[in-house]
């Protein structure tokens, strides 16, 4: 069913969802409440899954459905639940003051978005579906990076890492009509899963030892 019309729809859908992912990312940047941030991340992953779904549907690429399922199960449900548990267990609700105040960080994100577009402009031709999805992906990576720099709480940094992951996935979907080979996707997925678990363990230990999740306390190793 490779007609012009549906692929038209598809690209518009994808562009929309990608834009939504970016919006969510920006919301994450300004969000203080940890639980909300986790939900936002879940939402972002949901949109990612949506994009993957669209791609799968319009290309009838079976193994991409697997990716969709994995994303839904892992990133939309499991990881948020896990982090949620962590946060509740530690009874910390709020992010302390970030390094850069919100207006400035918004400005920075704007600049990074611009950079994302600049970087990915030459490759828009490569995208099968949607336009500037790649730009969104790169922007997600960069802003996620910035988010990581900007926040001090361990949990938020983990979240930021995951959004970077999302960005990469988006790029994968956007650039390659069929996503990566299944085995690679699986490997990546499980790595992310295990990674977050281990990070969880580490965060827990840090909390036990430092009685806080403020990573700015982790600065004894100098020189």
């Amino acid at each position, binding site marked *: 069913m490779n007609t012009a019309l549906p692929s038209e729809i598809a690209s518009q859908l994808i562009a929309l969802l990608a834009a939504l992912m970016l919006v969510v990312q920006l919301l994450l940047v300004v969000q203080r409440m940890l639980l909300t941030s986790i939900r936002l991340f879940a939402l972002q992953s949901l949109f990612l899954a949506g994009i993957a779904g669209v791609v799968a549907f319009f290309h009838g690429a079976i193994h991409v459905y697997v990716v969709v399922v994995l994303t839904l199960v892992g990133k939309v449900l499991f990881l948020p639940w896990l982090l949620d548990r962590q946060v509740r267990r530690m009874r910390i609700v709020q992010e302390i003051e970030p*390094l850069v105040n919100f207006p400035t960080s918004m400005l920075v994100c704007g600049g990074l978005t611009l*950079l994302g577009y*600049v*970087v990915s402009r*030459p490759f828009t031709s490569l995208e099968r579906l949607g336009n500037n999805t790649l730009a969104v992906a790169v922007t997600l990576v960069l802003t996620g*990076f*910035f988010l*990581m*720099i900007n926040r*001090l709480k361990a949990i938020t940094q983990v979240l930021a890492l995951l959004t970077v992951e999302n960005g990469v996935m988006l790029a994968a979907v956007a650039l390659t009509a069929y996503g990566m080979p299944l085995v690679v996707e699986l490997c990546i997925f499980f790595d992310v899963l295990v990674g977050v678990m281990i990070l969880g363990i580490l965060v827990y230990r840090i909390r036990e030892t430092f009685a806080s999740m403020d*990573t*700015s306390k*982790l*600065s*004894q*190793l*100098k*020189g």
Partner: protein
Amino acid sequence: MNQLATNLLLLTLLGYVAGAVAGLLCLRAERLANYCAFGCAALSALGGVVASVTGLAAGAGAAPPSLQLLPALIPYVQFTIRPDPLGLFFTLLVSLVGLAISLYSLGYARGFYGRKNLGVFGAFFNVSLLATTLVFLSDNVFFFLIAWEIMALTTWLLVSFEHEKEEARNAGVLYFVMSHIGTGCLILGFLLLFRASGTYGFDGFHAIGARMAAGPRNAAFVLFLVGFGIKAGIIPLHIWLPVAHPAAPSNVSAMMSGVIIKTGIYGLTRVYFDFMGPPPNWWGVTVLVIGTISAVLGVLYALMEHDLKRLLAYHSIENIGIILMGLGAALMFLHTGHPVLASLALIAGLYHTINHAVFKALLFLGAGAVVQATHTRNMEEMGGLVKRMPATAFFFLIGAVAISALPPLNGFVSEWLTYQSLLQGFGTTPSLIRLMFPLSGAMLALTGALAAACFVKAFGITFLAQPRSAHAADAHEAAPTMLVGQGLLTAACVFLGLFPTLVLKLLDPVTQQLAGLQLSPRLSLADGWVLSGAVATGGTVSMPGLVLMAVCLLPLPLGLWLVFARGAKVRRGPTWDCGLQGLTPRMAYTATGFSKPIRMIFKALFRPRREVQREYDFSPYFATNLRFESHVEELFLTRIYRPMNWLVWRVSRRMRALQAGSLQAYLIYIFVTLLLLLLFAL
């Protein structure tokens, strides 16, 4: 280079290895370790002497083949040696001095019994001898550098052998750091040659300089000058030398001063005369000037020392300077195309090299005996030792006369040759440059006279007059083996002084190899009894003649005694003490006092600072208690090296701020790198 000599040479190398292994095998039994290690070293060194002498006596035949010691590690790293005349000459030097030092060490090392591990000491000693010999023989850049670095390594270990002393540790570090910087320069220099020749073998380097562009060629010249200069201790690269030599055990000091700094001279000779091709004029001028400066400043600093071993160390700088004068002049003659004079100057340099090796080793051994007997290196606390250690005193005196370039000993001969070459250099060029020859000649004279002054002080204060401390008062003569070692070197001093023409024969192959002609026929008159400047009218000197003449004149005082003084009696009496109640050692002239006139005359150089605290009751002229303190500052240290060191530390400390410990900062580094690279990639 006949087969026998070659095999003997290989045996020598093996012997050193055996010595090292033996030392390590009997770690626990220190006496055994002492005898095995140093015995092996002595035997191997003896073999080295014989091998190199026979090799040199065989004359300059066809270029000897290079021998492969070990299978090549990788195509680049060949373990080949080539016993060519130059290498053999220096092998003779290291073996001769090594022999004496090994014998000496047999006795000297007893001082370590129960304190230190002699097995290790002996092993290091053997390895350093081995490495030094290999430096002189190696035929491949990689092998040369390996030997060079192992030599530096073992020397460092030997210098810091008494590592409980802070002084020894710091000295070792300073030595190794400087030496490593030098090695860096050498690596670059050799690689420049390698780029021109495309091979790492020395045979491929022969006269390679001629095929190099001016830029890399001059760069190589400077790199080698710095690299080998650091090892040789030329001013201003000398700072490690007066620190490391005193800190080391005395036999090691003798080794370093006698042999190891000569590796620098070997390198310079090998590179400049074998590899670099016809030199531009400024090379020779540079070397000559550096030599002159090193000679004069070296002896001036030596005069200011009252630490016996530091004094000797500074004299090494001086003598290296004198050697470089010869080499520099030789380079200039090569430039102006006077092969005869070139080889004369070269011979002067090389002859002084072996002379210095002999008498400086002798002096350090003597100093070692004295230090062991008096438990101090400070001359102000010695004195009167000529009565307590007569043999050592005699040997030291011979060494002192030799190093002060006084006839009839070897120092005079080599300096005479240097004078000759400088004198005749005047005619080689019409340009104003030639004024440098007589001027540096005059500086050489100044050096010689100051050296004489310095050794009057060194010998006079250390051995003469009354003992200045209890330790000096109950000092005892050194162990027999120690005396044997010194005696050997003393004999060498006398031989080298009285029969230069025989030694010059051994130098023929060297000049043949480097300058293309043999000079000894022109240098020896009256079937070898008289030494002549290379040019027919140049002038002649004959040490044996002078000695014989003196002997012939002996009847004169005898006759006078018979005629007039037969009735005269001799009695012992006190030295005149201005009517006080007897002389105390504190009234005798001190080393500091002795060198004061010089210190005053060269104020500008020494920047002497003195602090006098006088306590007195009624008049300052009757002090009850007087404290005098005087310092001399070494300009290069205080004006160049200390600031540089300070800067390095400061910068490094500043840089630690980069690793501030904050994750955010680290993330930002990565982020910025990423952005920059993105911009670069697009």
